[in-house]
């Protein structure tokens, strides 16, 4: 049997293997090198949740700690990418995008277009998203719909250790700016991951489960929630097809549309809030391109249009769960005009 490691380890391994392979890969972020200037243990931290731990010792000078200056260091990663490096900058929580968004969406994302195709900006911004750790309103958001909105950015949402590794290696090798979104509640998820280096292409969805009755498109951490729901539905003789787009930009439109052509029903499951979100994005795609196949209203299962609450019971209600997914599926099945 293949080796089993955690999502955290998969990210770390992808960084390590790419740094070994390519001397132009450097990484930077707050405490990524363990905490610069401190008198105690070297490499004490590896980012706030230990994802980059060990890399500094293995690649001296290529893992940089930063001051708390996200605009400056994300911008530095962008600038360095225009001059031959392949930087991976860690934005500790995606929620902090608000202090450095300009460097991402007006600079990195637009260079190629504004400069008439003459720029290449292979920068990766790794960042952590999602609810589940009771980290409240400013440390639990999804926000990848905001990046997905921006032309010029690629946006990646790995849903398992296997995907985390392969998609991150792809992200580092990719010549466009990539926002790589790691769900904080998945870091301890384990799964089979090849030891060798491999890439997963962008814009190719994973059909996680086959089924003919309904298409469930689920993103990031919601893939496993959809799988649980599908298992329960299967016991009731409902066969759901589950699609994990893996990247929201580019989006694998074809796989989604083909599935809906077959099932006639769509449920989109996303942890992000609903307005101008990914659930709406995918629903709109299908309402435009696969309308003829649709046999029921599209259902969206998302977080509510609220900030993320702190208290445990509220946060649990906030995050879409198996039950809500199953209910949405049943709603599409029961629908009568």
């Amino acid at each position: 049997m293949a080796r089993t490691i955690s999502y955290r380890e998969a990210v770390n391994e992808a960084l390590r293997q790419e740094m070994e392979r390519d001397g132009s890969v450097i990484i930077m972020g707050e405490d990524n090198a363990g905490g610069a200037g401190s008198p105690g243990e070297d490499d004490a931290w590896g980012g706030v949740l230990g994802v980059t731990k060990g890399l500094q010792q293995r690649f001296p000078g290529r893992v940089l700690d930063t001051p708390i200056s996200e605009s400056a260091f994300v911008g530095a990663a962008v600038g360095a990418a225009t001059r031959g490096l392949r930087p991976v900058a860690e934005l500790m929580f995606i929620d902090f995008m608000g202090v450095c968004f300009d460097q991402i969406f007006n600079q990195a994302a637009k260079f190629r277009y504004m400069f008439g195709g003459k720029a290449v900006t292979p920068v990766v911004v790794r960042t952590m998203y999602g609810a589940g750790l009771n980290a409240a309103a400013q440390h639990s958001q999804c926000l990848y719909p905001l990046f997905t909105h921006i032309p010029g950015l690629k946006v990646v949402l790995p849903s398992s250790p296997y995907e985390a590794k392969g998609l991150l290696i792809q992200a580092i090798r990719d010549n466009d700016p990539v926002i790589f979104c790691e769900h904080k509640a998945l870091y301890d998820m384990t799964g089979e991951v090849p030891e060798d280096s491999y890439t997963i292409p962008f814009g190719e969805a994973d059909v996680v489960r086959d089924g003919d009755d309904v298409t469930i498109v689920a993103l990031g951490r919601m893939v496993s929630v959809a799988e649980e729901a599908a298992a329960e539905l299967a016991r009731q003789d409902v066969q759901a097809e589950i699609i994990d787009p893996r990247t929201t930009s580019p989006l694998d439109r074809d796989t989604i549309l083909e599935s809906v052509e077959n099932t006639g029903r769509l449920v989109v499951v996303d942890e992000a809030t609903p307005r101008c979100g990914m659930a709406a994005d995918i629903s709109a795609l299908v309402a435009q391109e696969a309308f003829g196949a649709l046999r029921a209203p599209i259902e969206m299962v998302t977080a509510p249009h609220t900030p993320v609450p702190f208290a445990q019971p509220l946060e649990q209600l906030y995050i879409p769960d198996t039950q809500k997914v199953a209910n949405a599926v049943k709603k599409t099945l029961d629908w009568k005009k």
Partner: protein
Amino acid sequence: MTPTQPAKATSGLDQKALLEAYRTMRTIREFEERLHLEFATGEIPGFVHLYAGEEASATAVCAHLDERDSIASTHRGHGHCIAKGVDVKEMMAEIYGRVTGSCRGKGGSMHIADLSKGMLGANGIVGGGPPLICGTALAAKHQGTGGVGVAFFGDGASNQGTTLEALNLASVWNLPAIFVAENNGYAEATAATWSVACDNIADRAVGFGMPGVIVDGFDFFAVYEAAGEAIERAREGGGPTLIEVKFTRYYGHFEGDQQTYRADEVARARASLDCLKQFRERVTASGRLDTAALDGVDGEVAGLIEAAVAEAKQAPVPTAHDLTTDVYVTY
């Protein structure tokens, strides 16, 4: 930039004020020490950043403030809350995620706030507070209340663009704003001596046209005097000041931090520099207060914190209804 001034005896504070200051510092200490223990039991959700060791800063600054004044805090916000008069029981309930909490359980430790007390909230965003304080100071100026706004922020936050912009704006608009840089030596595991490119954060003041002062953060009276001077100047229309307070945090960056990046600073600080110890020595040596009075406060505070924890644990949690309320005033 003025170098640290040794504080004069007990800064002319009367017994009542001294006892009040001591009570505040002791309450913060007890609150944090207790949270440290409670967190270890696994009962407290989310991220918790403790202020223990830094009590003198919040307490001495807020001792000059009243209801005209507002403060903005950081992720390490419990001390600022207590010093600005937020109800300790409500705070504890908030940290436990209870509906009786200051924010009805929706904010937690990182967003604990009480606007009715002029406490604009702990803040999950490093550098989030200083711009807000430009606004509260502007409001005070516009309304002619004589009020000031105080932004507390860390050494790490002193490198955030939002903080630096706020310093300049406060000067340009000549706002009654005080910027208190709490330099506890670290931003998470990163040393301030590394991340702050100049010798002292206060050295930045000159670039933003305001006085910069450095004070010993273990010395309540030193902070008290520096803050008093700055706040008085601000109230009189003399504009903002940057005060750098230097000290050490007693616990990890957040609860759970193993702190292997540190040396033995904490043990040394606790043994000889501790703000509560120093305060006790100073007030007893000067004959202003006796040990019995201070011990009495200790006992009362212990009782209060005990009750706060007990009540928080018993209090009800929010319910489904609370999930979707409070997003808008009207929708």
